[in-house]
């Protein structure tokens, strides 16, 4: 038996056990989609660095670990207080749905009703109104899905379901929280959270997805988020990934934008030992606008990989992409940003920038901006730079009395500020800045706190 077969066998056994345990019969379409996804996963196995999409990131540590599905039990509940402490204060009260180890935790969630806005657990919708999911689930992230997205589709059980009815403009951000307790079984746990956001015609909403884990806990989060932005809708999406440094995080956010819709993504990757985040966007109609911003900040032995894909399949669409990376210690970062301007997508206006800051000699970043233009009348540009802190700027600050660590902190914060400054949820921005300081040990100097605050 080849090692590859062994790796997928574990998941097959789990898959069969899950099907046997399932209490009520699932609709045929769902069972079929699960089986198809499982079949694709088994056929392809986990990707290797020989796959173009994965050439900078080896997932061997994930493939060779025997993860078990999280089972609800006293272990999880017992640590609810631990995990509750990881979510962002109480600023999202009334708009917060929490999942622990991939399962809805109603006790930690707080949702107030508003004008047809639905914030529910996907499990609840699957149990009671599965047909509502049929047109969407797995359709947006389908096509060229990865092995990990297939695995998620095979095991999908729970996650967030957000439906914003047509015309509803809702100001308060909706917070989707995915916490990992690291408890539940003796083996490391895997969860496959699945989120579906449906933004109806001319609706407007802000969605914040947070992923966090109990510090030191080893687990694997394999998340898929699908977002459908209907005609004229506006969705601002924030993702804050601050998993435990012993954890694995692999996630895909798939977005389909209808005519004249606006979508922004702000992705912050601070945690996990090994993280891979894909944002796959499609302009499915004319006149759309898309902003993809991202910041990865890693230290120690962390590895973080950001892949983005913007698909200009229709004319008169605008995309702006800005990713920044900060790497300290022996950390490794990857940015691969692909923009495809398809034939006929005239008047496309696309900008892409990636800038990386290396804070140590051992840190490393791979940056691959890719622009493929198949239309003639377009305005596109991209650029990528990687550098270190400017020694002249550092000396300038120190020459005014600012301690070296604080001066470095100021320059790093300023570098990150270009992305964090675009966060329009104040509580999130403040939380982010705090987490950034925690994540980059070199910036935790007491002098800095004192000098700056």
């Amino acid at each position, binding site marked *: 038996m080849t090692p590859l077969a062994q790796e997928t066998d574990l998941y097959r056994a789990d898959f069969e056990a899950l099907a046997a345990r399932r209490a009520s019969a699932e609709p045929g379409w769902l069972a079929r989609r699960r089986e198809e996804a499982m079949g694709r996963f088994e056929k392809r196995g986990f990707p290797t660095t020989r796959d173009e999409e994965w050439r900078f990131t080896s997932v061997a540590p994930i493939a060779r670990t025997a993860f078990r599905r999280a089972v609800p039990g006293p272990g999880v509940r017992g640590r609810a207080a631990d995990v509750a402490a990881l979510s962002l204060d109480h600023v999202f009260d009334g708009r917060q749905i929490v999942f622990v180890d991939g399962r809805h935790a109603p006790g930690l969630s707080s949702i107030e009703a508003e004008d047809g806005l639905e914030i529910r657990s996907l499990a609840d919708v699957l149990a009671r109104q599965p047909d509502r999911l049929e047109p969407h689930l797995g359709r947006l992230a389908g096509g060229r899905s990865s092995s990990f997205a297939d695995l998620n589709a095979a095991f999908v059980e729970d996650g967030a379901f957000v439906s914003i009815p047509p015309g509803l403009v809702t100001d308060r951000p909706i917070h989707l929280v995915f916490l990992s307790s690291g408890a539940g079984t003796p083996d490391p746990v895997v969860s496959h959270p699945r989120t579906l956001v449906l933004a109806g015609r001319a609706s407007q909403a802000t969605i914040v997805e947070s992923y966090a884990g109990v510090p030191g806990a080893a687990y694997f989060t394999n998340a898929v988020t699908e977002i459908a932005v209907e005609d004229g809708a506006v969705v601002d999406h924030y993702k804050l990934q601050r998993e435990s440094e012993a954890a694995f995080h692999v996630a895909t956010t798939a977005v389909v934008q209808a005519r004249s819709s606006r979508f922004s993504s702000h992705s912050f990757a601070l945690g996990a030992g090994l993280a891979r985040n894909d944002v796959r966007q499609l302009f499915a109609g004319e006149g759309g606008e898309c902003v993809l911003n991202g910041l990865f900040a890693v230290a120690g032995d962390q590895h973080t990989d950001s892949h983005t894909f913007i698909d200009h399949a229709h004319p008169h669409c605008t995309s702006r992409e800005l990713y920044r990376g900060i790497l300290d210690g022996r950390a490794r970062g990857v940015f691969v940003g692909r923009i495809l301007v398809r034939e006929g997508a005239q008047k496309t206006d696309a900008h892409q920038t990636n800038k990386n800051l290396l804070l140590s000699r051992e840190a490393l970043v791979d940056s691959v901006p890719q622009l493929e233009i198949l239309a003639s009348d377009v305005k596109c540009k991209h650029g990528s730079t990687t550098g270190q802190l400017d020694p002249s700027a550092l000396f300038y600050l120190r020459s005014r*009395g600012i301690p070296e660590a604080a001066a470095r902190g100021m320059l790093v914060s300023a570098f990150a500020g270009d992305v964090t400054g675009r966060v329009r949820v104040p509580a999130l921005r403040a939380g982010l800045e705090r987490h950034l300081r925690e994540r980059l040990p070199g910036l935790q100097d007491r002098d800095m706190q004192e000098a700056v605050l």
Partner: protein
Amino acid sequence: MLEIRGLHASVNGQEILKGVDLSVKAGEIHAIMGPNGSGKSTLAHVIAGRPGYQVTAGSVVYKGRDLLAMPPEERARQGVFLAFQYPVEIPGVSNVYFLKAALNAIRKHRGQSELDAMDFLSLVKEKAQLVDIDESLVKRPVNEGFSGGEKKRNEIFQMAILDPELAVLDETDSGLDIDALRVVAAGVNQLRDPGRAMVLVTHYQRLLDYVVPDFVHVLVEGRIVKSGDKELARDLEARGYEWLEAPAPAARS
């Protein structure tokens, strides 16, 4: 206040300063003049502690302490200030934010209480008038997109805020039109103080029409070859540096 003895310094292994002696007392203004490449800016940077400038011999004693043993931030807290010839642009860091951090680091060192935002802003208002700097510039990222003149004014503005005991102005006059020069000079003159010493590094005599120095030194090829009063600056203006250049070591007493 400042005693420099037999100072030798190298940059990238090349010796630039070859035995500088200079004594500056509180309340004095010294001008250091000299042709391009004579080591004027190197001297300024060595005093401020710029990394990459290696002192190979000699000593710099400031207020009785070994200045060369201090990191740059410690020198600043002890009252040393360098106005940069080429002020650095720092995108994303606002002038006021950074100056408040700097001032409070210095005040804390002096045993003074830290200024809160209100007190700091009224200080900013007062000092901004001194150098005629637009308050909107003060709130912008440090030097980013500033004109040459605005950058130099910002240096003098920072000096006014940080209130140093020893200020070294590295070619603060170069690249300024006459109006900007007058503004900068007026700022410097207002900061003249019996407790404060200033060292003006300049290539031209022009600044010294507005800021009258107590002493003028001529630096050529890494050594001070002549010292005098403000009349020496006028001689240099009339005669150039050539008559002083390349002194034979034996000619020095």
